[in-house]
């Protein structure tokens, strides 16, 4: 019998420190995919991870790369500063929906408009996880959170924000995709987009962002499998999963359009 080989070695770009996420929380999946991409592209020694404020605040303990911990929402500004000093570095921010779509909206929009050459991994779990389940700008209408106890209404809190669609109006964005960390097929697709985003940065093509629909069973009041089904059945309807923009692809595939 042939010798067995390990088909999924633990990513070199993860430290191996046990991640402190709730059971089933797909923050862990997102970390693994990003680390695998860093390994595949061989850029670990020039990568700087920007940890932000949210459940992923300890990202600097999990990614085995240089790292800077940024204040709430300011990751894109910090990434801009680093990238302007070291254009040859590979920089990514890792931001939740509170961090990016609420307090940090100005920073992400302007980084995209300036075509800043870094990558954002945007975890949309439609809730403020770390602070115990308050409403996020991405919370769906009708969704109950600790600050929308009767369910989000338009009258009280307006409409949820679709970040990819919003950034898709900006010429500086070179890669924009929304993926979901649910089924095996979708997770594979998410990894392809993450890889594409980093490739966009390596090509110097400008701003890249991958939005990952992610579960927060803890504050959605669901078990893990129910939460996965909720993304599939409800969240994706409002937040369509697709590649919005792929400048590299447009250039490469220009002939067969």
């Amino acid at each position: 019998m042939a010798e067995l080989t390990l088909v999924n070695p633990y990513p070199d770009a993860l430290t191996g420190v046990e991640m402190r996420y709730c059971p089933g929380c797909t923050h862990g999946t997102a970390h693994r995919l990003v680390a695998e991409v860093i390994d595949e592209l061989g850029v670990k020694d020039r990568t700087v991870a920007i940890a932000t404020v949210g459940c992923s605040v300890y990202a600097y303990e999990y990614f085995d790369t240089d790292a800077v911990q940024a204040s709430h929402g300011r990751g894109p500004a910090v990434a801009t500063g680093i990238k302007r000093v070291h254009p040859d570095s590979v920089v990514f921010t890792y931001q939740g929906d509170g961090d990016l779509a609420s307090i940090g909206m100005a920073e992400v929009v302007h980084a995209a408009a300036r075509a800043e050459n870094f990558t954002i991994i945007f975890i949309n779990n439609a809730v403020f996880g770390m602070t115990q389940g308050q409403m996020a700008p991405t919370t769906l209408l009708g969704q109950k959170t600790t600050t929308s106890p009767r369910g989000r209404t338009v009258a009280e809190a307006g409409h949820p924000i679709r970040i990819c669609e919003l950034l898709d109006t900006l010429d500086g964005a070179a890669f924009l995709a929304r993926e979901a960390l649910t089924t095996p097929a979708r997770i594979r697709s998410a990894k392809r987009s993450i890889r594409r985003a980093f490739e966009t940065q390596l090509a110097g093509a400008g701003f890249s962002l991958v939005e990952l629909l992610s579960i927060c069973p803890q504050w959605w009041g669901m078990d893990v499998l129910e939460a996965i089904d909720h993304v599939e059945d409800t969240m994706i309807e409002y937040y369509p999963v697709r590649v919005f923009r792929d400048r590299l692809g447009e250039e490469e595939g220009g002939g067969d359009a």
Partner: protein
Amino acid sequence: MSEQRQRVLITGNEATAEGGIAGGCRHFFGYPITPQNKIPEYMSEHLPPIGGVYLQAESEVAAINMVYGAAAAGARAMTTSSSPGISLMQEGLSYMLGTELPCVIVNMVRGGPGLGNVAAAQSDYWLATRGAGHGDGRCITLTPYSVQELHEFTAGAFEIADRYRNPVCVLADAILASMMEPCELLPRREPSPPERPWAVGPHDPAERERNIVNSLWVDHNLMEAVNLRIEERYRQAAEEITDWEEFGSDDPEVVLCAYGISARICESAVGQAAQAGVRTRLIRPKTVFPFPRAPYARWAERVERMLVVELSMGQFVEDVLLSVEGRCQVDLLGRAGGSMPTVADVVERVVALAGKAGGH
């Protein structure tokens, strides 16, 4: 020094910007606000041709966080603003304190509170010397009083920021920002900051471990250790860089206390008070954090009255009070919101105080 220095007639803003370049700054991030717009304009013209970076941020919040990123990446980075913009930078400064990163910020103070006006004020004294956002820790704060000093202090601020791994604030005002004076320019230094073994960026893993720039310490002992380290640097800074100038009578009846533009007024008042028959001496801090307590304490033993002149309703005066520790009477001539005392106002107060001084 034998090097030939260029002597030019320029505004305080330009002298500040050129001071930054002379000090080795090649990364500038800012957001326009009067009365310091000439600084970002100057930087946008002069930095790119010498391989530097000028970036107009979307806000002061973003600007200070770009400085944070650039400093974390090892660069000598700088931002400049005026009062409302400095308010917005407080959180970013707190993170830079927590991560022990060097940077230089310049505050051309204007009248406040609120949107205020664009006239000269000194009402951000607490913001500069007590501030830097939440938590312990402060900005090392330099107080130039001329265009020449704006230039030199800004250039020197990078050295100080590096030495103590702490943000350094150059605290001036709307008049110093826009007035023109002759200024001897320092040569533009190559950006050659000291070794930064803690900086992030591309590296050879054989040469160093990965670097983490972080201010989150859930273990309170580790968090306190950061604070103790910062505090120790302040103690060191107090010994090494505390600076002031004294001017006037060696046998004063009244000691004048003022920094920055107020010290310019007081300098003139020293002469005019003498003509009015009152001997005065001016103690002018060039650093206000660390604060030159010694000269105030020393003169408090020898005079009965000091007069603090500042463009605020009383902020700097508290440091003077802390220094004299009740050894003499301290009076305040404070104007606010962009209003200024005249030299005659100061002399009048000095004469009145001198009359009182002997009379009890």
